C-alpha cells in the first residue's frame, strides 16, 4: 500500500515537472511578451524599462531555473499585472471554483447514479432509451450555447435569475442572492459531467446484476428492491468512484468555459486574464495549482478505491 502510494507520488512529481517545463517554454517563446501588453501609446523606452524590470532580458533557461528554484520553496513569484504575490491572486479566486465544482460534482453524482441505476434496471425499456438519449444530447450541446440560451430565457426574457456574477459576499450576503447566482453555472457545468456518470453507472450496474451472487441473493427470495439497492448498487458503485477521478480534469476544463459565460470570478477566468495579459508568473502559478489539485484528487480516489475494493491491495 505504502509502496503503491510512494510510486504514485513519484509519478506525480515527474508529471508536475513536465507540465511546468512545457508551459514555461510555451508562453515564453511566444510572440508579444508582457511589454506588448502595455498601451499602444507606450514608448520604446517605456517598453524597454518594463522588459528589464521584469527580468525578461535574461535567457529563457536562466529564467526557468530561477522560477523552479523559487517554486519548490513555495514561492510562485509576483504577478506581472498586479504586482501581488501569485499565491495570493490564486487563493482569492480558487474558492469560487471549488464552490462551483463541489456543487456540480455532488449534484451530478446523486442525479447521475439515480438515473444510471434506473436506466440499468429498465434496460431496453422506454426509460432507458430516454435517459440514454438525454445523455447523448447533454454531451453534444455546446455548453456556452446552452448557457446563452438559458440566460436568454431565465435572465433576459423572464428576469428570474441573474445573468452573471457570483453575488455579493461579505457584509450584505444573502442566501437567495448566492443560490440564484449559482443555479445557471452549476446547471451548465453539470451537463458536462452528468452524462458520463449516468452511462458509467448504468454499465457498472448491468455487470453486477448479471453476476452470480446477485442471482443467489434473488433466489433466496430477498425483496427485489433490497437486491437492487443493497447488494447490487453497493458493488456497482465501486467502479463509479474511479470515474469521478477521471472526471475532475474534465470538470475543471468545463469550469473555464462556464466561468467565462457567467462572469464567475474563479480560476478559469483567472487563467484567461493571465494568458491575455501575458502574466507569465500567474499562468505558471495557475497551471501548477490546477495540476496539483488534479493529482491530489486522483491520489485520493485511488486511496478510497483501494479501501473499498480489497482486490486493489494486491496490485
Amino acid at each position, binding site marked *: 500500500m505504502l509502496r503503491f502510494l510512494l510510486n504514485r507520488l513519484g509519478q506525480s512529481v515527474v508529471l508536475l515537472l513536465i507540465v511546468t517545463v512545457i508551459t514555461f517554454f510555451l508562453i515564453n517563446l511566444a510572440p508579444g511578451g508582457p511589454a*506588448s501588453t502595455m498601451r499602444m501609446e507606450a514608448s520604446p523606452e517605456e517598453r524597454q524599462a518594463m522588459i528589464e524590470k521584469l527580468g525578461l532580458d535574461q535567457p529563457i533557461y536562466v529564467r526557468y531555473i530561477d522560477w523552479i528554484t523559487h517554486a519548490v520553496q513555495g514561492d510562485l513569484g509576483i504577478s506581472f499585472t498586479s504586482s501581488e504575490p501569485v499565491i495570493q491572486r490564486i487563493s*482569492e479566486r480558487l474558492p469560487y471554483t471549488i464552490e462551483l465544482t463541489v456543487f456540480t460534482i455532488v449534484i451530478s453524482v446523486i442525479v447521475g447514479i439515480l438515473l444510471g441505476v434506473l436506466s440499468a434496471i429498465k434496460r431496453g425499456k422506454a426509460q432507458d432509451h430516454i435517459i440514454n438519449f438525454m445523455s447523448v444530447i447533454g454531451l453534444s450541446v455546446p455548453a456556452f450555447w446552452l448557457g446563452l440560451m438559458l440566460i436568454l430565457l431565465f435572465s433576459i426574457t423572464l428576469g428570474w435569475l*441573474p445573468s452573471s456574477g457570483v453575488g455579493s459576499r461579505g457584509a450584505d450576503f444573502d442566501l437567495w442572492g448566492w443560490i*440564484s447566482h449559482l443555479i445557471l453555472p452549476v446547471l451548465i457545468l453539470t451537463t458536462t459531467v452528468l452524462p458520463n456518470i449516468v452511462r458509467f453507472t448504468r454499465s457498472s450496474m448491468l455487470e453486477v446484476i448479471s453476476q452470480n451472487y446477485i442471482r443467489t441473493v434473488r433466489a433466496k427470495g430477498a425483496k427485489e428492491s433490497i437486491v437492487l439497492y443493497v447488494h447490487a448498487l453497493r458493488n456497482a458503485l465501486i467502479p463509479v468512484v474511479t470515474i469521478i477521478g477521471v472526471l475532475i480534469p474534465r470538470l475543471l476544463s468545463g469550469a473555464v468555459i462556464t466561468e467565462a459565460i457567467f462572469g464567475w470570478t474563479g480560476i478559469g477566468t483567472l487563467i484567461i486574464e493571465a494568458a491575455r495579459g501575458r502574466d507569465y508568473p500567474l499562468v505558471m502559478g495557475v497551471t501548477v495549482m490546477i495540476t496539483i489539485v488534479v493529482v491530489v484528487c486522483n491520489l485520493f480516489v485511488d486511496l478510497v478505491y483501494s479501501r473499498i475494493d480489497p482486490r486493489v491491495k494486491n496490485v
Partner: protein
Amino acid sequence: MKKSKWKFLSTLLLSVVLLAACSYGGESTTTSGEKEDGSSSASGPKKGGKVSIPIVADPTFNPWHPNAYAESNVINRVLFSGLTQPGKDLAPSPDLATKWEASEDGLEWTFYLRDDVLWHDGEKFTAEDVAYTFNEIALNKELGANNASYFQKVKEVQVVDDFTVKFMMESPVAALPAYLSFNTEIVPKHIFEGNDPWELTSFNKKTPVGTGSFKLKSYTSGQSVVLERNDDYYGETALLDEVEYKVLADANTHVAQILSGELSIFALDDLAALDRIEKAKGVTVEGRETTRFFWLIVNQQVEKYQDVRVRQALLHAIDRQNIIDTVLKGYGTIADAGIAPALKEYYTDDVTRYEYDPERAKELLAEAGWKDTDGDGIVDKDGEPFKIDFEIGIQGDLEAVSQMVQQYLVKVGLDVKLNAMEWNTMIQDVVVNRDYEMSLNWWRYPADPDLSAYMHSNSIKGMNIPAYQNAELDKLLDAGAQASDVEERKGIYLDAQKLMADELPYMFLWYPQEAQVRVDKLKGVPELSFGDALHYIHEWYIEE
C-alpha cells in the same frame, strides 16, 4: 414497472418545480424601482444614495502604474486629483492648482496650488507631493510610467514654496495644462517616499490615499470597489454617500444590470445592444463627443503607400457613413483630419473631404499606375498585383469595422487579406516591430489639438506608427505647440487640418461619439463624456 416510471417522471417534475420556485422567489427581489415619477420632485440636489459603475477588471490604485488601464482610470480620477481637470468646455480648469502661467519663452510653467487640501489620511497636501510625483515617478525613465510620454519635454519640477511649483521645460509645450488633466493625478509623497512605486501593493492594491471627493471604503478582488464620501474634500462636498465599482468582465452583463437597475452609468462600447436599451424605461442613452479618432493606416515605409493618391483612393473606396450606421449605430461623425469636434474652438470641416466614390478610387489608383491589366479583378502595376496584408487586434468593434473596410477595398480591386490577431501579438507586429502593411485602430488624446505625438516626423519611433514625414506639417505642429495664444493656435491648427486632410498621414475614418448609458434617476451629470464627467462626481445626485 409503472411505479418507477412515475418515480422518474416525478423526479423530473420535482426538479423543474424546484427550479421554478427558486426563480419565482427571485422575481420578487429583483423587480423594484420601476416607479415612474412624472409628478413633482423638482427638489433639486440632495444628499444620499449611491451609484454603481461597471469596471472590467481589478483596478490598480495608482494612476501612473503601467498596469493601470481604463478600469483603474475611472476610479483614480475620483480618488485622486490632478493639478488641472477638464473643464465643462474641455479647456483645462483649476483643480489642485488654482492658476498657472507660462514664462515669456514658454520654458517655465508656474502652478499655484491650493493650501487647503488634505490627503485621505489627514496629512497636508503640499508642493512636495507634486514634485515627488513628477520627479520620482513620471519623469523617472527607468519606471516607464503611464502617460510619461506627455512629459518628455519636462526637465524637472521645482518646489518654489509650499504651494507653488515650477515645471522646467526643454522646449515649449502649450498643451501642458491639458496634459495635466489627463490621468496624471498627484500621489502622496509621505507614503511613497523610499518605496518602489510599482511594488507598493499596500497602496496600489489595498489602501490608496488620495485627495479626491471620495475615499476608499472597501475593495474585494474580482468583485467590487466601494468608495465613500470624503467629508474633508477641499471642493464642494459630494452629495452621493457611496460610489460602487463592480468588476464585471462581460459587456452583456453591463447591459443586463443597467436594465435591472443594478448599475447606474457607463459608456457603452459595443452598440449591438443599443436598441434594447433605448426601448427600456428608466434608462437613457445619449451621445457625447470625445477626443478620439479612428484611423486606417498604411505603412509609409513601404514605397507604394508613399503615393498620396493611393491613400486618397483607399479613403474614397470606403463607405464610412454605412459603417458608422451599421457598427456604431450612428454614434460617430465622419472624420476629415485628426482634431475632433469636441474641441469646438479648433475643429473645422472646411477641408478636403473624401466622399464614398469607388469609381474615383479606381481613377486615383489608375493615376498612381495601378490598373487591372490581366482582368483578374485585382489591380496591378509592373505585373505585381496590389496585395495588402491587413493586421488588426481583436478588441471592441475593430474586428467588425475592419471586415467591412476590407470588403470595400476588395470592391475597388485590391487584394486585401484581413488578419485579426490577439491584441498583444498585434502590438508586437504593428507597434513594436513596425512589421505591417495596413492596420486600423484609434487614438484618444487629451483635450488639446496638439497631435505632434501622432504625426510629427520626430515621433516615428513613438506613436507616429504610419511613419508619415512632412516638413510642412512638422513646422505647423511645432508652431502650434509653442504658441500660447489661443487665437494664434486656432489659425495654425486650421492650416494643419487642411494639410492633414490633403495629405492623409492617417486615413481618418470617424470621430466616434460615446454612447453614454445612464439611469434616469441619476442627475447632475454634466454633459461630458463619461470619463470627463467623473471629475464632477461630487455634483452627481440621486432623485428618487
